């Protein structure tokens, strides 16, 4: 039962995880967070801008589903623990190899879930890059998981058929009989007297998952913001038009008011080099769109952005149909102080260099004087405190 929930849930985590990697357009510029990927990036495609909520939904699902499945994973590991102490540990070569592959499965599962959880909580008790660890760990886990699914699916089907869910849901603890031990089975050989029914166990695990969902979903759904009591993000910044999540503060990025003041210029590079002050940018045609901003860490929100189309800026730099644009921030030390957007992303009429949000100037923490906002792009590619855009043409 727990296994079948994971059998559905884990492939969703895998697919949304791979989608997230693809959304960074890792083949462009310095975008790749795991340059050592080798053939493990075979599925990459140029990232899309439609629908604009695709990254929001996909990455929100990845993170929230991962959190919600954590109790199921722990319960599953708990239920198979009698196997760990099975004796003798080696019965045949086949048996030994199968057990060795469990390191990929169990180590991989716990490693992936907890590196993911710690990352969204900004807790880094390690020196390696989270991106490297979570990406390669996922592939190691995936191969262990696949082998396990292939070997155990007949077993899963037999187990699901052996009991009727409806009958189990009517069985209280008084009538609960432990699973009889089998030669290579999962059931404990000498179980204690039952203190909880199978129905109760499913209820506890389901209830725990639901509790986690209720306490975190609000970071990805605007209307539920106040319920995200344990979600790392989803907290209030005290109301007003710029009350939404910040992923790197101006202070942390070392953005001082003197560099974003009157002396600030946006430099456009292409066949033509152009410099624009903020009033000059504001005098260009302004466009307003409601677009989501969605972080790889799972939180997301939809806001109303106003500014100049990236396509218009490309034209000013003499790049009618650019292949890509390399955007650089005043934040020189951040991991995402630069990003390369594809020509496809630039050409979307909703892709903006935003100057205002919800009717007011961007706040310093949201990227004043100007930031990029591209539909469906991962949050870190919506570069804040933009200083230069270099358009590449064929």
């Amino acid at each position, binding site marked *: 039962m727990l296994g079948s929930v994971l059998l559905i849930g884990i492939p969703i985590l895998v697919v949304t995880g791979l989608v997230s990697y693809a959304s960074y357009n890792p083949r462009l510029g310095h975008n790749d967070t795991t340059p*050592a990927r080798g053939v493990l990036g075979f599925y990459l495609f140029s990232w899309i801008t439609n629908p604009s909520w695709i990254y929001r939904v996909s990455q929100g699902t990845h993170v929230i589903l991962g959190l919600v499945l954590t109790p199921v994973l722990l319960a599953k590991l708990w239920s198979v623990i009698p196997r760990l102490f099975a004796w003798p540990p080696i019965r045949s070569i086949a048996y030994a190899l199968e057990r060795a592959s469990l390191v990929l499965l169990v180590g991989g*599962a716990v490693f992936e879930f907890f590196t993911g*959880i710690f990352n969204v909580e900004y807790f880094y008790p390690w020196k390696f890059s989270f991106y*490297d660890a979570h990406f*390669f760990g996922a592939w190691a886990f995936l191969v*262990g998981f696949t*082998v396990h699914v292939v070997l155990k699916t007949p077993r899963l089907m037999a187990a699901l058929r052996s009991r009727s869910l409806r009958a189990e849901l009517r069985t*209280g603890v008084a009538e609960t009989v432990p699973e009889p031990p089998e030669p290579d089975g999962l059931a404990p050989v000498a179980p204690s007297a039952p203190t909880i029914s199978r129905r109760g166990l499913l209820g506890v695990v389901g209830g725990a998952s639901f509790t986690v969902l209720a306490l975190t979903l609000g970071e990805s759904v605007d209307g539920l913001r106040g319920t995200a009591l*344990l979600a790392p993000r989803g907290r209030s910044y005290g109301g007003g038009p710029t009350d939404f999540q910040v*992923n790197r503060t101006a202070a942390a990025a070392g953005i001082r008011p003197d560099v974003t003041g009157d002396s600030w210029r946006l430099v456009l590079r292409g066949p033509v080099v152009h410099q624009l002050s903020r009033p000059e940018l504001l005098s260009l045609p302004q466009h307003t769109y409601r677009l989501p901003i969605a972080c790889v860490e799972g939180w997301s929100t939809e806001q109303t952005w106003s500014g100049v189309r990236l396509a218009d800026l490309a034209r000013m730099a003499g790049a009618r149909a650019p292949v890509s644009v390399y955007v650089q921030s005043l934040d020189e030390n951040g991991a995402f102080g630069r990003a390369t957007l594809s020509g496809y992303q630039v050409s979307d009429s909703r892709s903006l260099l935003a100057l205002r949000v919800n009717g007011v100037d961007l706040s310093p923490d949201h990227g004043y004087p100007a930031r990029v906002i591209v539909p469906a792009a991962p949050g870190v590619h919506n570069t804040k405190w933009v200083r230069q855009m270099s358009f590449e043409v064929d």
Partner: protein
Amino acid sequence: MERLRRAYGARTAHLLLLAGCFAFAGYVVDRVLQVPYAWMIGVYFVAAAVLHDFVLFPFDALADRLLRRIRLPSAHGAAPPLVNHIRIPALLSGLLFLMFFPLVLGLGERTYRSATGLGTGPYLGRWLLLTAGFFAASLLLYACRLVAARRRGSGKMEARSG
């Protein structure tokens, strides 16, 4: 073929599957070796399995055994067992702690603050309040069941925890 099968202990397909599995895992390891602190990734990967199997599991099992040993005073034979009414809120609270302890204990305070501009202060209080809420709800439910069981008298044993 049959000899191979007997020596190996399973079908040939099993061998092919696992050989493929380890070959692919080997490729992943080769890729990981290209990144900084690769050895540390390996250590954490193996530690993840070991920590669960040999630390978390024995700890939970021991705590549960101790809980079950406590003989709870029950003047009435018909009283429903209390064990799950303690175990389930404890489990929920423990699960939330396991998943959110970096926020609850403020372990990532510096990175959290530089990212968000906020502190992790509120999380400890929230977790404690949730824990208190779980126990209060569970014990309230127990009280209701106890009253119901007493009303029904000592004859029936139907109201057991499920």
